[in-house]
C-alpha cells in the first residue's frame, strides 16, 4: 500500500516537474540527449562535439543574458538586441582604429562601447516608455532600422585602419574584419583546460559567470526587486511609489550594454567582427534560447539563461554533424529555424501571459 502511495507521489512529482519544466523544453532536452548518445555511434568524437557546444555556449551566453533585465521590468523579450550589438561593434571598431591591440583592445572595446550603449539604450528606453504595450513589435523594427542605418555609417564614417577598410578604396569598413592580433580568443585561451579532445574555454566561461553573478546580485538589491515588481504588476509598483519609467529605462540600458559586451565576447571566440547586415538576425536566436531555458514573456532567471543557451547551442552544433553522419542530409538549419521560432510562438501564445 505504501508503495502505491509512493508511486503516485512520484508520478505526481513527475507530472508537476513536466508542468513546471514545460513539455516543449523537455522534448528539446530529450532531443539533445539523444544527439549526444547518437554522436559516438555514428562515429563523431564526443569530446570534439562537447568542446564545440561549450565553445558556442561561451560565445553566446552573454547575449542571452542581455534578455533578462527587460523581461524582468515587463518590457518583454528584447527583439531590439541589434541596437546593443551596434554599440558593441562601434566599440570594437573604434578600439581597433585607435590602435589598441591584444587584450587591451578588448578592454578598450568594452570601455568605448559603454557610452554608446548608454546613449542608444537611453533613447531606446525613452521610446519604449512612450509605447507601453507594443514593445516587442517596435523593438524588432527599431533593431532593423538601426542596423540598416549603421550600414550606411560603416561606409561613411572616417575609418582608416588598413586592417579594417576595403583595400582598394581605402575607406568604408569591410563586411568581416579579423580580430587576429587584437582580441582573438582573448578570453577563451585564458586558463584553457584540455582533457583529451575536450577543450574548455575557462576564461570565457568565467567572464560569463562574473556577469551572471553580477546580474543575480543586482536582482537581489532594492532596485532589482523594484524591477521585478514593475514587471510583475506595474500598477502595484506605482502604488508603492516606484518611478516605473525610470526602472524600465534602467533595464533597457542594462540590456543594451550587456548586448554590447555580449557581441564582443562572441567576436573574441568567433574570430571576426561581422558588420553590415550581420546583427540583423541576432535577436531571434537569443530570444528563443532564453525561452527554451524556461523563461516566459515576463519571467526569466539566470538558470533559464544557462540551460537555454546550452540546449540551443547544443542543438545548433550537434545536429549538423550527427544528422549528416546518420542520414546524409543536413537538416540542421531547418531544424534550428523551426525549433527556435516555434519556441517563441509557444511563449507568445501561452494563456497566462496573454492576460497582460
Amino acid at each position, binding site marked *: 500500500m505504501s508503495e502505491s502511495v509512493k508511486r503516485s507521489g512520484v508520478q505526481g512529482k513527475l507530472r508537476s516537474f513536466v508542468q513546471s519544466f514545460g513539455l516543449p523544453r523537455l522534448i528539446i532536452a530529450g532531443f539533445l540527449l539523444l544527439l549526444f548518445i547518437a554522436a559516438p555511434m555514428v562515429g563523431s568524437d564526443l569530446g570534439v562535439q562537447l568542446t564545440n557546444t561549450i565553445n558556442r555556449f561561451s560565445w553566446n551566453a552573454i547575449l542571452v543574458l542581455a534578455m533578462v533585465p527587460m523581461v524582468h521590468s515587463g518590457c518583454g523579450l528584447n527583439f531590439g538586441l541589434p541596437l546593443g550589438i551596434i554599440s558593441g561593434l562601434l566599440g570594437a571598431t573604434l578600439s581597433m582604429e585607435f590602435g589598441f591591440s591584444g587584450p587591451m583592445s578588448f578592454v578598450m572595446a568594452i570601455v568605448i562601447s559603454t557610452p554608446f550603449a548608454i546613449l542608444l539604450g537611453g533613447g531606446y528606453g525613452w521610446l519604449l516608455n512612450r509605447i507601453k504595450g507594443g514593445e516587442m513589435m517596435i523593438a524588432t523594427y527599431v533593431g532593423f532600422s538601426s542596423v540598416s542605418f549603421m550600414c550606411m555609417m560603416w561606409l561613411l564614417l572616417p575609418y582608416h585602419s588598413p586592417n579594417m577598410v576595403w583595400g582598394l578604396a581605402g575607406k568604408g569598413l569591410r563586411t568581416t574584419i579579423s580580430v587576429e592580433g587584437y582580441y582573438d580568443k582573448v578570453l577563451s585561451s585564458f586558463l584553457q583546460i584540455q582533457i583529451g579532445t575536450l577543450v574548455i574555454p575557462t576564461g570565457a566561461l568565467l567572464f560569463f559567470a562574473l556577469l551572471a553573478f553580477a546580474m543575480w546580485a543586482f536582482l537581489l538589491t532594492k532596485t532589482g526587486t523594484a524591477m521585478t515588481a514593475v514587471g510583475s504588476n506595474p500598477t502595484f509598483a506605482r502604488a508603492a511609489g516606484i518611478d516605473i519609467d525610470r526602472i524600465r529605462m534602467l533595464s533597457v540600458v542594462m540590456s543594451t550594454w550587456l548586448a554590447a559586451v555580449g557581441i564582443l565576447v562572441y567576436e573574441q571566440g568567433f574570430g571576426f567582427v561581422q558588420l553590415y*547586415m550581420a546583427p*540583423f*538576425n541576432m535577436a531571434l536566436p537569443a530570444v528563443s534560447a532564453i525561452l527554451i531555458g524556461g523563461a516566459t514573456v515576463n519571467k526569466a532567471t539566470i538558470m533559464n539563461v544557462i540551460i537555454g543557451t546550452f540546449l540551443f547551442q547544443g542543438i545548433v552544433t550537434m545536429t549538423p554533424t550527427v544528422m549528416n553522419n546518420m542520414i546524409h542530409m*543536413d537538416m540542421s*538549419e531547418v531544424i534550428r529555424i523551426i525549433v527556435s521560432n516555434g519556441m517563441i510562438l509557444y511563449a507568445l501564445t501561452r494563456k497566462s501571459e496573454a492576460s497582460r
Partner: protein
Amino acid sequence: MSEVKEKKPSGSRKWTARILTLVVLIAIAAWMFVIGRGHTVYFDNKTLELENGESIGTLQRVDVYVNGNRVARLAKRERGMATWIGQNFKMTLEITKEKGDEPYTQEVAIDLPYSLDGIVVNLPGYLAGRSQDEWMSEFVPVASSTTEEDEEIITDEFGLGDM
C-alpha cells in the same frame, strides 16, 4: 428592393452550390492542365536515317514561322527551336528544296504527344510523308552541369537586388 425578405439558403442548396463551385474549380484546373501543357519543339534539317537503311536527304533552306514570327532559318544540318502551349502545334514552313529553287510555303499541323516535354521533328522526314514515329523523337536534355552554384544554406539576408 425595399422589401427584401431574408432568404436563408437551405442547407442542401448551400451544399449544392459549394460542391458545384468546387467542381467548377477542379474542372478549370483540369482544363488548364490540358490547354496549358507546354512543349519545346525542335526541328532538324538533317538527314533522316531509317531503320531499313533508307535515308532522306536534307533541304537546302527552311524558314520556320510560328504564330507569324520567324523562329528559325535552317540551313542544312541545322536545328531550330520553338515553344508551344497545347498539343496542336502549327507552323508555317517556307521551303527551298534545292539551291536555286523558288521557295514555297507549307502549313504544318502536328499533334504533339502530351507526355513529352521536348520533341524533335525531322523536317525532311516529315515532308517526305513518313510515319510519325520515324520523324518524331523525344528530346533528351544533356544533364546540365553548368548550374552548380547553389547548395548554399539559406539565410535571411536582405535581397538587395531588384525587388
